[in-house]
């Protein structure tokens, strides 16, 4: 059953290449819904005791094991992936891109890589899938991105690849002392805190570039702006989450000895990123750049909260991971809707669409509220728990990170106001297409449901988080 998680994306990625052009749209959506079905079936089977359920576990080559499985954390990440991919495809429905076989195929390869990252319980397979995701997203952006994309994308690829190599070095370094790459074997290795710091730094470099944490973020705004909308959605919606997931699943459990030396630097860098991203987002003219920096600011907060390594903060970051995935996809769709109709994303040239497209104005506003984490959206629960953890960790850090709530409201509503209100700038602005409406509505409904009843996520995640936390001693003891 769970093997279908691998088989289906590969099958659809290859078979879509020989489908007639008119059928590609529907075929892609059917395929992604099929994967969603499998993920939901896996969630139903999971008995929620928090342990990792391995569905394949075999030794393989040179200490690499075929261990794939999932626990609550993985399942939530899988669900996020499986929900977002159909949303990305549907939101593309009106574009010519959706007819493109290569594009759809690459999206499925991307999904394969993401699923692999979330269910690999073997260090090397984690690395393998981590790298696999890079190629489809690079090709999607390269083939279908903005005209002057090339330099930005080369930078993106090389940057992330070099980061991953640091992770590979760390993996080799830890494997030398372990019988195999199986996660429990790797966890069992005990290091002196100096070695652990160096090795954890290798992991952190890979994750910090992907998240991105200040000062490793320079690839991000350009890549986001130059990628096609679907690429940006995949990048910010799911790909960043790989790194956050990697911190929870791999970096800290593997090197608990390193928490002592990495905790402060990482939290400080991440907090700088929170404020820095937000401040820059306020000044941007390009709407996509606003949300690119906003994304950096939001995930910086998640990274900081994870490093606190406190139960509530972790729980909150899982909620926020889901929330940010959904909201980021929604916001980039909103940008795309505006760009499709007006041909520009420059905030100075926009305005007055609220009158012409009331439906759009409503859903965009709801998204903006979700993005700034007003109560009753899932962002509120997430940010509240994370900030609570940060304040408990250190008051000043908590306060500085807390400014994200204020700054977030500033840049989000500035973008909203400049584009939706003010004098009417265009003769006509068509209201939402059904596919756009569907995506926005699904996102908003999901965000509100999770905001009212976050236990849908936390019930799933908490037992697993407890186990992850228990395997290493509490941070106070480190």
């Amino acid at each position: 059953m769970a093997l279908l998680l691998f088989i289906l994306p590969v099958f659809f990625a290859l078979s879509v290449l020989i489908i007639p052009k008119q059928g590609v749209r529907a075929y892609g959506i059917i395929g992604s819904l099929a994967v969603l079905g499998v993920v939901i079936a896996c969630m139903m089977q999971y008995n929620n005791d928090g342990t990792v359920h391995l569905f394949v576990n075999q030794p393989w080559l040179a200490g690499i094991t075929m261990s794939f499985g999932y626990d609550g954390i993985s399942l939530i990440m899988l669900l996020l992936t499986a929900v977002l991919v159909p949303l990305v495809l549907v939101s593309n429905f009106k574009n010519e891109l959706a007819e493109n076989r290569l594009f759809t195929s690459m999206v499925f390869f991307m999904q394969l890589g993401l699923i692999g990252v979330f269910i690999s319980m073997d260090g090397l397979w984690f690395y393998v899938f981590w790298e696999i995701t890079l190629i489809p997203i690079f090709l999607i952006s390269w083939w279908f991105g903005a005209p002057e994309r090339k330099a930005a994308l080369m930078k993106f690829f090389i940057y992330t690849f070099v980061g991953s190599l640091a992770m590979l070095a760390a993996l080799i370094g830890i494997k030398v002392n372990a019988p195999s790459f199986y996660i429990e074997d790797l966890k069992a290795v005990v290091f002196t805190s100096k070695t652990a710091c160096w090795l954890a730094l290798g992991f952190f470099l890979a994750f910090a570039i992907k998240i991105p944490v200040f000062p490793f973020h320079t690839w991000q705004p350009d890549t986001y702006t130059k990628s096609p909308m679907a690429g940006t959605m995949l990048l910010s919606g799911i790909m960043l989450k790989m790194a956050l997931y990697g911190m929870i699943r791999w970096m800290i459990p593997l090197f608990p000895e390193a928490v002592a030396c990495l905790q402060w630097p990482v939290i400080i860098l991440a907090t700088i990123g929170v404020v820095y991203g937000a401040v820059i987002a306020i000044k941007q003219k390009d709407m996509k750049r606003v949300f690119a920096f906003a994304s950096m600011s939001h995930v910086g907060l998640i990274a900081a909260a994870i490093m606190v390594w406190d139960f509530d903060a972790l729980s909150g970051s899982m909620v926020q991971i889901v929330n940010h995935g959904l909201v980021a996809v929604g916001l980039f769709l909103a940008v795309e809707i505006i760009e499709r109709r007006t041909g520009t994303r420059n905030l100075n040239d926009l305005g007055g669409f609220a009158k012409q497209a009331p439906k759009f104005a409503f859903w965009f506003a709801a998204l903006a509220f979700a993005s700034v984490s007003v109560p009753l959206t899932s962002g509120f629960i997430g940010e509240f728990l994370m900030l609570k953890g940060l304040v408990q960790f250190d008051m000043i850090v908590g306060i500085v990170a807390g400014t994200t709530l204020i700054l977030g409201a500033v840049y989000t509503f500035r973008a909203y106001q400049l584009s939706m209100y003010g004098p009417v700038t265009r003769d006509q602005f068509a209201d939402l297409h059904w596919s756009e409406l569907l995506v926005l509505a699904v996102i908003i409904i999901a965000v509100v449901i999770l905001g009212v009843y976050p236990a849908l996520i936390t019930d799933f995640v908490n037992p697993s988080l407890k186990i992850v936390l228990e395997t290493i001693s509490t941070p106070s003891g480190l």
Partner: protein
Amino acid sequence: MDALLIVFASGLISLFAAFAKKPWLVVGSAMAGLLAAIIVIIGQLQTGKAFFDFLKYEGLAFDQVALLFSLAICVLTLLIVGIGYERFKENPVHTGEYIGLLLFSATGAMIMTAYTDMFMFFLGLEILSIPIYVMAGSNKADVRSSEASLKYFLTGSFATGVFLFGLAWVYGATGTFKLQEIQLKIQEMDTLSPILMIGVLLIMASFIFKVGAAPFHFWSPDVYDGAPPAVTGFMASVVKIAAFFAFLKMFAFCFGRGELYDFWKGALVVMIVITLFVGNLSALRQVKFKRLLAYSSITHVGYTLLLFVSQGDVAGTLWFYMFSYGFSIVGIIAVAIAVNDSEDRIEGLRGLGKRNPFLAIVGIVALLSLAGIPPTSGFFAKYILFSSAWENASWLVIIALINSGISIYYYLKVLVTIASPAEQEQEKIKLSPLTIAVLTIALVGMLGFSFILPFLY
């Protein structure tokens, strides 16, 4: 031994088949011979029995490891004959010579995998090299091809001279040519004689030359560039396999004694670092495809040299690494042959995705495999290589990883050139069924080799 004879015989047959002036007959007999050799080797690997057992000559011992390497040599030669055929047959008068020479060279390579005394080693080296001197110049109308041939011949024979010189010193120190006796003599020495050390260094210099590592790499870009693509592919894959394994056998087995190891390891480590950086940094600004390939191959030599300071199943790692590298080379060379750009610019690959999607996919996968990006076998090979070297030389592995990071730039550059559309409409590329078959094998090798491997062990 059986496979060796078969390959040699089919080389002869294809030479004579050339009189019929029917290229397909030549290539057919060559490929049939290689296929037969592969089957024989696999049979021998499983049963452990050889048909020509009575021909047991002391200088050659086809044990398991030698057989595995012979298998790699035969498979890769087969693939290269397959992709080179389109070019070879353009000149029907000479097809037989080209393919015959390739097979003779492969014979030399197989001798180098199985040698047990230095005399056979030297013979193997020469049988391997001399046909390639000729092959490099086989494109007689092209000045660069003649240049490549002459350059390779002069420098190559000089390196052979250096090797013989070193061998003479080693003989002077130990009084024998047999590997086992040399090893025994070295173990028995109270202190290492300086004569031996000089000999080892000279042999190492010739080895570094043969595989094309810095600082003896200057011939390789010119020769790779000038030689016909199929020959370039042969040099990059088969020749390297043979040279690496033969020297690995010699250095690990004969010169492996503690103090001696420390002595040549110092020199080698410096050369590894130089090789990695020279190969990578020179590759960054190349505009010609085959020159880029030459520099990339220098870098790969640098990675492979890490094996000499590794531990564990070094031969197995080398086999896996060179095999998967060979598959990528076959893929890349096939692209170069099919595009057939006389100026050989990287830009000439632009629009390949439109001209022939299958070829473009093979090219892209081959580049990913060369760059060591998962899930290609190039990645797994590189990983196993690096992890086996980690214990002894972790800082070298880190340097190698940094170099992997540098190298991604030029591989990516070629990759996106293949993936980008061309400015003007170009004619489609038609592939012959033979090429498609070979490329399919290479593609399966690049993607699935690491997945099949656990079942072979």
